[in-house]
C-alpha cells in the first residue's frame, strides 16, 4: 500500500467524520448543560432535507445552509420546550423528534418535488465545492509523481469543502468556550448541579436554552453538510444513524472536545474503509464482506454503548429536569 492510497483513505475519513464531529460537538454542548439529546439524528435529517430543498429552489448553498440550521433550531426549540420548560422526559422528546423528522422529510419532499421522497440533484452554486489550496495538485497523475509532502498537502489538507475546515476549527473553539469562558463554566455547572447555578443567582433555564440552541445550530450544519457537500441532494433516511453514532462517539470522548475529534475520526475511518473494500482485500489478501465493513461503525457503537471502553461519567444532572427545592 503506497502513501497516496493511505492518504486517500484518510481524506475520506475527514470527509465522513465531519458530520459526525459537528453532531458530536452539538451533543456535547447540550449534554454538558444537562439536556440529553437523542434527537440529533432527527434534527440532522430535517436540516439535510431543508438545506437540500432550499439550495435547489434558490440555487444558493448558503441559503440552504441557513434553512437547515433554522429547521434544526426549530426542533431544538421543541426539545427545549418539552424538557426544560415543561420538565418532560428528555429521551421521549428526542425519540419523538426523530420520528417526526423521519416521516415529515419524506412526505414533504414527495409533495414538493415528487421524486419519491428525495430532492433533485444539486449542482453548481447549490453545493459546497472543494476548496483547492494554492499550489495543490488536482490531477491524479501529477499527484502520483509528486513527493510525499506535496501528496499530503494536495490530497489530505487541500480539497475539502469550507464546512470541513469550519468543523475542525470548532473543536478548539468548543474547548476554549467550555474551559476558558464564563459561559463555559456556567454551562458545565448547570449540567453537574443546577441547584448550584440557581443559588448563585444565574438562570438555569436560560443557560439550558442557550446550550440547546448551540446544539441546534451545529446539528443544522451537520445535516446541511450531508445534503449539500457529502452528497448532492437529500435522500430519505440519509443520516443513516449518524446521530446515534455521534452520541456513541460523545460517550467514547467522555464529553470532551478533543476526544470528540479523535472519536469521530475513528468512526469516520471505519466508514472510509467500507468505501474501499479493494484496499482491504489487497492488504489482508482475503476478501471481507462489504456488508461487514459497512456494519463496523455500528458494531463499534454497540461496543461503546455497552460500556466496554472504560468508565465514562456523564454530567451528573444529565437527563434530569431541574426542580427547585429547599
Amino acid at each position, binding site marked *: 500500500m503506497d502513501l497516496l492510497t493511505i492518504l486517500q483513505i484518510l481524506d475520506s475519513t475527514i470527509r465522513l467524520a465531519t458530520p459526525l464531529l459537528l453532531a458530536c460537538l452539538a451533543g456535547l454542548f447540550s449534554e454538558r448543560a444537562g439536556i440529553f439529546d437523542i434527537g440529533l439524528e432527527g434534527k440532522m435529517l430535517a436540516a439535510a432535507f431543508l438545506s437540500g430543498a432550499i439550495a435547489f429552489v434558490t440555487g444558493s448553498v448558503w441559503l440552504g445552509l441557513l434553512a437547515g440550521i433554522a429547521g434544526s433550531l426549530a426542533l431544538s426549540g421543541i426539545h427545549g420546550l418539552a424538557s426544560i420548560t415543561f420538565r418532560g422526559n428528555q429521551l421521549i422528546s428526542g425519540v419523538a423528534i426523530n420520528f417526526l423528522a423521519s416521516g415529515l422529510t419524506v412526505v414533504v419532499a414527495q409533495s414538493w418535488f415528487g421524486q419519491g421522497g428525495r430532492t433533485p440533484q444539486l449542482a453548481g452554486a447549490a453545493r459546497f465545492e472543494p476548496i483547492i489550496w494554492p499550489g495543490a495538485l488536482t490531477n491524479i497523475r501529477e499527484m502520483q509523481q509528486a513527493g510525499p509532502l506535496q501528496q499530503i498537502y494536495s490530497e489530505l489538507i487541500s480539497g475539502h469543502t469550507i464546512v470541513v475546515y469550519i468543523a475542525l476549527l470548532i473543536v478548539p473553539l468548543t474547548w476554549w468556550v467550555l474551559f476558558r469562558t*464564563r459561559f463555559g*463554566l456556567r454551562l458545565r455547572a448547570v449540567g453537574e*448541579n443546577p441547584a*448550584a447555578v440557581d443559588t*448563585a*443567582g444565574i438562570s438555569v433555564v436560560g443557560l439550558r436554552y442557550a446550550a440547546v440552541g448551540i446544539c441546534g445550530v451545529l446539528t443544522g450544519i451537520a445535516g446541511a453538510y450531508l445534503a449539500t457537500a457529502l452528497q448532492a441532494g437529500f435522500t430519505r433516511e440519509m443520516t443513516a444513524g449518524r446521530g446515534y453514532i455521534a452520541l456513541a462517539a460523545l460517550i467514547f470522548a467522555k464529553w470532551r472536545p478533543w476526544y470528540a475529534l479523535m472519536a469521530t475520526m475513528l468512526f469516520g475511518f471505519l466508514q472510509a474503509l467500507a468505501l474501499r473494500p479493494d484496499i482491504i482485500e489487497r492488504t489482508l489478501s482475503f476478501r471481507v464482506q462489504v456488508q461487514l465493513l459497512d456494519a463496523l461503525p455500528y458494531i463499534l457503537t454497540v461496543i461503546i454503548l455497552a460500556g466496554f471502553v472504560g468508565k465514562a461519567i456523564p454530567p451528573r444532572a444529565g437527563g434530569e429536569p431541574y426542580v427547585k427545592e429547599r
Partner: protein
Amino acid sequence: MTQADDSMQAGTAADGTVPAIELKGISKAFGPVQANKDISIRVMPGTIHGIIGENGAGKSTLMSILYGFYKADAGEIWINGKQVQIPDSQAAIAAGIGMVFQHFKLVENFTVLENVVLGAEDSALLMPSLSRARRELKQLAEEYELNVEPDAKIEDIGVGMQQRVEILKALYRGADILILDEPTGVLTPAEADHLFRILEGLKAQGKTIILITHKLREIMDITDTVSVMRRGEMTATVKTAETNPTELAELMVGRKVLLQVEKDVAKPGARVLEVKDLHVTDDKGVERVKGVSFDVRAGEIVGIAGVAGNGQSELLEVLGGYEKARGTILVNGEPIDLTGAKSDGRSRRRRGIAHVPEDRQREGLIMDFAAWENVAFGYHDDPKYNRGILTDNAAIRADTEAKMKRFDVRPPNPALPAKSFSGGNQQKIVVAREIERNPDLLLVGQPTRGVDIGAIEFIHQQIVALRDEGKAVLLVSVELDEIMSLSDRIVVMFDGRIMGERLPSETDARELGLLMAGITDTDRPHDAAEVEAQLARAGGSAAKEV
C-alpha cells in the same frame, strides 16, 4: 421566661442601631399548609442570631424567602433600614445576603476556585476572575481561619472543607449577612468547633449571622439572640444569655420536655449478639467493614458512634440480613448465615432480631402505602394477620390502630399513607412495628434523624424500656449527643474498624470526636486542622457519603 425587651418590637433598637434584617408580617402557604404565619423578626447587625424550631416549624421556608427561593404571600423585607424586594437569589446576593444550605450547592467535579467564582465572574473570560479569587481566598483564609485548597476538587475534600467553600462563596460575593441552615448536621465535633470559631471571627468583623438549627446546645454556645419557631409561627425572641435549654425546648414543643434520657444503670445479662472478625465488601469491591468484633448483652444498649459512611451502615445491613459478609455472627450463641444464601430479613426476624433501618423513607416504609400496610411488612405471615390464604386486613388495621395509639402516632389513622405523616410520626410507626414484636435484639439506625424533640423523647423512652425488659439493643447514630445519653457502652467506628470502646461516664465528646476521626492517642492535645486533615486522608470516602 424573659421576653425580649420592648425595644425589640420598636422600629430601632434602644441604642438607635438599625437592624441588619427586619422581616415584617411574612406569610407563606403551600396549598393548605401555612408554613409561615405573620412572622416578624429583627436581626441586629454584628450578632449571631439563632432560629430554632422543630422540623416543619417553618425555619427553612422563612430563610428561603429571605434568599429569594420562595416568594412570600405577604409581608415586607427590610435590609439595613431599607425595604427591598427579593424575587430571586440574584437580588438576595445583591442585598448582601449569603446562604449556606444544609445540602451544599457545590459542583462536585469543579475545583474550589471554580465553585467560588461561579456566578460571580468579573468578565466573559475566566482567567482574570480565577486569579482574583485566588488572591482573595488567600486573604479570607488568613482573616477567618477559612483555609481551603483552591485547586482541590470538591469531590476530593471533606465535608468540613466543603462547608467552608460555601461560606467563602458567600463572602466572595460580598455578603454581610450569612445564613447557615443546620450547618453542623454533617460535621464531627471538632469540625463543628472549627466552624464556630469561624463564625465568631466573622461576627468580630461586623458580619451578621443567622444560624438555623434544632440543636439546643449550639444555640446556647454561640448565639447572642434566639428566635423560636413553632408550627409556622414565631413564638419568642429572647437573649440567649437570659434563657436556658429547658425553656427553649418548651417553647419549641409547646410543653415540658425531658432533654436527658432518664434511665437506671444497666444490668447486662447473657451475650445476645456476638460479632467476630466481620468483613463487608460493597458492590464496588471496596471493603467497608474491616474485621470488626464486639458483643451486645441482654439488658444493655451498645451505641456505635462514627461519622456517617465509616462502615456502620453496612454493619447494620449485614445484621438486618440484606448484605453479605465474611466472619461470624452469633445470636443467642447460634451462628447466623452471612453468605446471603439462607439469610434475609425474614429469617433474621425469626431469630428474634428486629430492625429499625437508618433511612425510614427508603428502607423502613413504603411512602405511598397506608400505615396498616406498612405495619404488616415483614410480619405479613403472622397467623394473626391471615385467614387461610387471604390476609385479614381488618385484623391488621385494628392491630395497627392499637399500636399507633400506644406509640402516640398522630393522627392515629391506619388508612393514611405513610407519606402524610410527619417525620417523627413515621419513625414512631417503624419503631412501633419493630419493638412491639418483643425482639431479643433490636437494631436501631439513626432513630431520631429528622425527628422533632417531642418524638425523640418518646422514642428514646421506648428504647430504654425495651432494654429494661432485658433485651439487647444495638444503636447506630451519627448524633453524638444521642449516643452519649442513650448508650450503656459506646463503640467508635472509623474507616470500617473499631477505634475503641468507652463507657459514657468515662468519656466526653472531645475524646469520642477524636476517635471518630481515627485518632487513638486521645491524651495528646490536637487541633481541629489536624483532625480534619486526618479525616480527609482516611475518611475521604466517608465524607463524600454524607
